[in-house]
């Protein structure tokens, strides 16, 4: 009797364990669980987007006119004043 359906019970329980115990304060059901998970996923994507957007500019390097400006100013005998 007790051995009739261990296969059905165990995998979901094991999964739920991982997702739930870390994320949550209590078992308020699947809604809360997926909300938390969605939140984390969204946060990860936001981080990626943020860095992608930023790095897109960083990868453009130093614009020629700015490079020239810095080199010119740093050669001046007076300092830049």
């Amino acid at each position, binding site marked *: 009797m007790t051995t009739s359906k261990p296969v059905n019970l165990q995998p979901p329980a094991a999964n739920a364990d991982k997702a739930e115990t870390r994320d949550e304060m209590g078992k308020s059901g699947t809604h809360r669980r997926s909300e938390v*998970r*969605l*939140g984390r*996923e*969204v*946060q*990860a*994507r*936001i*981080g990626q*987007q*943020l*860095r*992608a*957007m*930023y*790095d*897109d*500019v*960083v*990868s*453009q*390097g*130093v*614009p020629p006119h*700015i*490079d020239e*400006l*810095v*080199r010119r*100013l*740093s*050669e*001046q*005998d007076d*300092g*830049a*004043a």
Partner: protein
Amino acid sequence: MKLDPAIRDQVLATVPSLRAFAISLCGNIDRADDLVQETLLRALAHIDSFQPGTNMPAWLFTILRNLFRSEYRKRRREVEDADGRYAETLKSHPEQTGRVEFSEFRAALGKLPSDQREALILVGASGFSYEDAATICGCAVGTIKSRVNRARTRLADLLAIDSVDDFGPDRATRAVLAGGGRT
């Protein structure tokens, strides 16, 4: 006196990131490049106040942020209006804000209060520690932490709402939503 080439190179090495920060503050590439240029003029004129061996990026970012803030106040009398204007800039000059694929994300970023936006960028994109970000913004570390948290929460809301309602999901936002749903 000539500038030590090592210091000059540190300045140049910071420029790409400084520009990215400026663009995210201004929402406009042309204005951002003016701001970067002005920052460098100011920095090189006062290079004596930089202590070799300390954090060059943090020093330059601080100058840029202060310039941006003071000009902000000069150009727009009401500081509260600044965020609305930023959003307007994005709407009227989408071509000046960078690549199209980031436009929706930039628009959402533009809806954040400016103090939250800068905190999020400094920590989440520029890679500064909370401590350095606090120095750059002239506030407490705890303040930076809470601004970053609020910015993240608000951004998640904005991206979710925008994709369903008015704008229709673009690729980036769909990726956000699809990723959240699938795993």
